[in-house]
């Protein structure tokens, strides 16, 4: 079983839709959770960073962590064509230097 599971999509939505991206994980030691956005031929760009459970909001983006279910989500409100990219989740435990990445979900927002 992989440490982190992420549905690869692809996901296609109309402009203005609410997008929900998700990852599940198996290691209960994970404490730090990140979402990255990766445009084609570019490196991953850090979008959201959260610690432990709860919600964090930044503009149109909301990151949600449910440690009891080992499930994290990224919500994008009022999606825009510029949001079209691959979204990767990542997580790490309290100690150590290893980060675990999902395989990424490809999102297309259609104008």
């Amino acid at each position, binding site marked *: 079983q992989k440490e982190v599971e992420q549905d690869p999509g692809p996901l296609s939505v109309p402009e203005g839709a609410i997008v929900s991206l998700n990852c599940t994980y198996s290691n209960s030691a994970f404490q730090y959770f990140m979402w990255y956005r990766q445009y084609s031929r570019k490196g991953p760009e850090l979008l959201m960073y959260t610690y432990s459970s709860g919600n964090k909001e930044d503009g149109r983006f909301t990151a949600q962590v449910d440690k009891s279910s080992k499930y994290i989500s990224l919500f994008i409100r009022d999606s825009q064509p510029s949001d079209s990219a691959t979204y*990767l989740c990542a997580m790490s435990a309290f100690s150590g*230097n290893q980060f675990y990445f999902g395989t*990424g979900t490809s999102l297309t927002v259609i104008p």
Partner: protein
Amino acid sequence: GAGVSQSPSNKVTEKGKDVELRCDPISGHTALYWYRQSLGQGLEFLIYFQGNSAPDKSGLPSDRFSAERTGGSVSTLTIQRTQQEDSAVYLCASSLDGGSNQPQHFGDGTRLSIL
């Protein structure tokens, strides 16, 4: 620039040749990571440097792969006797001090193609 810089952005070479990929981390970041990203695959960890500590080489796929970091800043990933399966995007990331609570910041990668 303020971000992680990688060069070259693209590299095409013949099977059997050696290649060197360069990474210049964010100024002040002591931790540096190398990853490999293949189509449809997640990020594969290769190697991790933190300050003057011995690097964590546990992700290097074979002895054809090596990396060094001189002066605690710039890093070079070397692949000897390249094989076609080495074709991938090689990403470098840096973080402030390598702690698991420090998110990584990535460069745009080197797209390596082995003919």
